């Protein structure tokens, strides 16, 4: 096989301009795909990291029906203490779970004494929220953190609201909320900090201490309406979600219907659709690469066979077995694919390294100065390389077959 490969390499060197052009096309395709995969992967992981690590968690647990009416932030679909206890028992039993944070979400009126607007709030246990949302603290653009996040009697409010209502840390504001029974209660709070807005649901919510939330809502039981869960490894999301669902499906109402819903982040955030679109683009660009390699190699191999008909006739006449002639031309296609893959991969890795040395900053929606840190998994590099080489071999099969089946007499007569 080595001798066939050596001869194939020499034939490629003979038509070096064509070889260069075809390899160049393959290199370009590989660079485009690897760069796209690494940059889009980096964009996805930055965005998903921000969504899951600073507001949503990797998955969320609600009472059945809560997510369908989450825009209204209903208080009549809270999880009762017994239900919360059952959920926490299930969470404790799963070793892949790093932390979870119970939340009491509700809507309220926010007043700076001259103007009033609406606000979405999360009652949280600060230490537990900080453990489950490690990047929430990084969103602080003004003020201080305490107890991991927020002190009693104080508020963390979204940046847009702070600007719109012209309030800053240290200012006193009033929250007015309607409780489950329809009665209204108001309390004063001090603004402790201002949080940067993040795209997606919950990205412009305010935070207050769980005890303050319950007091404002005149709630005398330890009810919550959301539990945000953080995993040790996001790659285990599907497995943990499935396990949690099966653990909690036994929690049913009197009619025997399940009472608890478990949703992964991608079922709750619209960014999941963008992520899916990126995956689709990723697939299309890979298909384009296959097309480029297929056409380029097939074209060059058909030309090679056509130009070397007499040579094929000669080697066939002197007794070269047809399978060896086939192997010779397939080897040329293989080498073209291999050279293109190796150079393309080296160039791509160099460019990815350069993008890490000089990172690209970008804005997405209201999020400013996000940093792209492209990286690519070895499995992706190997898979794309293997696809290109395989397609190169497949593309050269037809011309190689034609060469191997050529009638020596006609081939020797060819002018």
């Amino acid at each position, binding site marked *: 096989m080595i001798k*066939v490969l050596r*001869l194939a390499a020499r034939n490629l060197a003979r038509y070096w301009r064509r070889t260069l052009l075809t390899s160049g096309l393959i290199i370009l395709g590989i660079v485009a795909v690897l760069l796209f995969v690494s940059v889009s992967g980096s964009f996805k992981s930055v965005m998903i990291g921000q969504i899951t690590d600073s507001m949503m968690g990797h998955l969320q647990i609600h009472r059945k029906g809560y997510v369908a009416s989450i825009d209204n932030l209903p208080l009549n679909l809270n999880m009762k203490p017994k239900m919360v206890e059952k959920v926490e028992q299930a969470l404790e039993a799963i070793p892949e779970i790093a932390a979870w944070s119970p939340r009491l979400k509700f809507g309220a009126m926010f007043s700076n004494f001259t103007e009033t607007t609406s606000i979405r709030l999360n009652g949280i246990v600060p230490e537990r929220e900080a453990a489950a949302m490690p990047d929430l603290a990084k969103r602080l653009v003004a003020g201080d953190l305490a107890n991991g996040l927020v002190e009693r009697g104080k508020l963390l409010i979204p940046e847009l609201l702070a600007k719109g209502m012209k309030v800053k840390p240290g200012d006193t504001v009033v929250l007015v909320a309607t409780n489950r029974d329809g009665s209204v209660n108001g309390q004063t709070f001090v603004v402790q900090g201002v949080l940067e807005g993040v795209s997606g649901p919950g990205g412009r919510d305010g935070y207050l201490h769980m005890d303050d939330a319950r007091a404002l809502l005149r709630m005398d039981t330890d009810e919550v309406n959301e539990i945000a869960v953080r995993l040790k490894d996001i790659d285990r999301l599907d497995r943990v979600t499935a396990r949690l669902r099966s653990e909690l499906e036994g929690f049913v109402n009197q009619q025997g219907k399940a009472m608890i819903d478990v949703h992964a982040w991608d079922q709750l955030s619209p960014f999941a659709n963008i992520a899916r679109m990126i995956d689709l683009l990723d697939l299309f660009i890979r298909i384009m690469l296959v097309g480029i390699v297929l056409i380029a190699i097939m074209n060059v191999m058909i030309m090679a066979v056509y130009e070397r008909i007499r040579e094929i006739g*000669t*080697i066939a006449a*002197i*007794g*070269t*077995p*047809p399978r060896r002639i086939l192997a010779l031309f397939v080897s040329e296609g293989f080498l073209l694919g291999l050279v293109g893959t190796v150079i393309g991969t080296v160039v791509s890795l160099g460019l990815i390294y350069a993008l890490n040395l000089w990172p690209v900053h970008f804005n997405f929606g209201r999020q400013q100065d996000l940093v792209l840190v492209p990286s690519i998994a070895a499995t992706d590099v190997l898979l794309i390389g293997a696809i290109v080489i395989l397609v190169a071999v497949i593309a050269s099969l037809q011309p190689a077959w034609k060469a191997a089946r050529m009638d020596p*007499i006609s081939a020797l007569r060819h002018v």
Partner: protein
Amino acid sequence: MSLVAATDLGKTYRAGDVDVTALRGLNFSIEPGAFVAFVGPSGSGKSTLLNLIGCLDKPSNGHLSVLDTDVASLGRRAAAEFRGSHIGFIFQDFNLIPVLSAYENIEYPLLMVQDWPAQKRRARVNELLDAVGMADQAGKRPDQLSGGQKQRVAVARALATHPKLVLADEPTANLDHDTAYRVLDLMKQMRDEFGTSFVFSTHDPKIMGAAEITFGLEDGRLTNNGGRS
């Protein structure tokens, strides 16, 4: 035992809608160690006959055996194997592989057709390079060689696998007379040295004198039955 034996050998081609008879009722035999020429004008059937003897084609009628093998019975793969084992070829246009040096062209059949081990291969190629007087040109590629040198390399390549028979279709057609005679002398010398039979075709009456046995061909028929030159 004859090296080549033809009985009532015929070959008809289909060219479009017309049947073209290239060879008609040939009867001849060639003995081992012979130096034979088939002589005739263009279109007389020389190349067709050499293609049949070289197992590149099959007779339409009659019988042809080469080394006691019925040519008609060989399938595509078996014919390639038979050629690789027993027959060497020399072509009018030399047909050397352009990317290979003289050395590598001679080595090609040993490497790609017969899988000889490296040491044995090296010894055989060097022996042939010496025999055809091309040892000092071994590293040159075909485009760096003259016509005569190319044909010397082609002769050496044809002899590389110790074939019983070498077929040469118009081996001197692209050479000047002096060079043509030198190539024919070389072929004869190789026959004497290695015992290989040479069968060649030519349309040049001056060249036919170099053959020991001459068959005349005209319109697909033999005009003589192997006269000694």
